[in-house]
């Protein structure tokens, strides 16, 4: 499940124009990948649509934090 959601997040971020090989679970959304505020909103909207979850994505999060938030939300 973790892997599946991680791959989903990777896919959504790649759709925004980022390279897949840049994205690891430890990548900081802002600090490493450099997503701007609008891109963070877009990822959260995708999660809302596909997982029916309202996740408050913070720019200082890492990818694994996002995955874990989704996992928590699904429980």
């Amino acid at each position, binding site marked *: 499940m973790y892997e599946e959601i991680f791959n989903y997040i990777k896919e959504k971020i790649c759709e*925004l*124009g980022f390279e897949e090989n840049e994205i690891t679970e430890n990548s900081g959304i802002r600090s490493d990948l450099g997503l701007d505020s609008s891109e963070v909103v*877009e990822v959260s909207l995708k999660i809302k649509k596909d997982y029916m979850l309202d996740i408050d994505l913070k720019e200082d999060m890492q990818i694994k934090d996002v995955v874990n938030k989704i996992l928590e939300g699904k429980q």
Partner: protein
Amino acid sequence: MKNKKLIVTGRGLINPAGNSLNDFWNHILSEKICYGKLNIKDDTPIKVGARVKDFNPVSYISKRIEVKTDTFTHYFLASLSIAMKEAGLTIHNENEDEVGIFYGNNSGGWRICEKGFDELFTQSYAMVNPWQATAWFPTAGEGYASIIHGIKGYSKTFVADRVSSAAAVYHGIASLQNSRNKKILVGGSEAPLTGLGTICYNENGSISNAISEELCKPFVSDSPGIVLSEGGAAIVIETSDNANSLGIAQIKGYATNYYATNQVEGVVACMNRAIWSADLETADIDLIIPEGNGDWESDRIEIEAMRALFIHRPDKLPIAFPKCYFGHQYGAAAVSDVICACMALEYNAIPQYRFIDEIDELFTDKLTSKINNVLVNSRTSAGVNYSFIISRIEN
């Protein structure tokens, strides 16, 4: 204050006739029409238009920018990158405050407009994408161009119907003359060929709804109307003392006015003033690229004005109608025409006009002498006029 010599040093366009200057110009000279059936899924009264072909935005911009922006912005950014390359212009710390962007667009981002409405009405309020605010409005072209290239100088976006990029040229030039900028990137773009976009343009009453190969016959009284088109165009204009290169052409004269009534008089006055500002006489004009858009109500006014101004020429006035091949790009139209003027000067050639025998005998599509000065007109049906004189560069 109009004492600075202004030269065009770079050109770029994304056009139904081609996405490189050579492809575009060769296509125009071969007189191939570029419009056809639109195949829009929505029920729209506009069935024919001119689409850009073989355009991949990520050849010019990053995927990250592509995702956040509408097609009209892609067209402009691509055109701009081509123009800046020809001009050899790069932006750095020393010049970032001295370069401005002057951009024309008539109607913003239709694709993102419809996307946002779809999200709002079929998904929910909370699902509207975060780029709606910055991708839809016409300023997006200017904004993203400034971000990508680091341009911080005085810049503005014009939304003025068919003359949007003509206004951009005019006011961009003014910013050079009054020293707000030393170089300007001027352009326009439009991407109206969507369901809602074509419906909107249909309501202006000038667009052809016919399904025919002879959709656009500028200056011919039975022309069905304007062919709606899309694309982008951009030029780099520099003052000659700041230019890195010798340049391609000179913008020698320019004028604008607004005559809501007595429109013929207005067009005459505008052309006259542009010619006067270039320190030329009417006899010095070797080629005219008119607004000539295929809407007879508009065209007949322009013909009458040209007749009044040029009737005493000893020879016929060469005329070219690029729009009859690739339609009216609205936001990009005027700069596309300026680029055509530059190409005509460079190659001393103009396209033949298949309907030349049906228009006023004042005009010819044959060149009899070298082109040195081209008059370009851009105007709206309401009576706003712009005229530019594009000339061979004087030594």
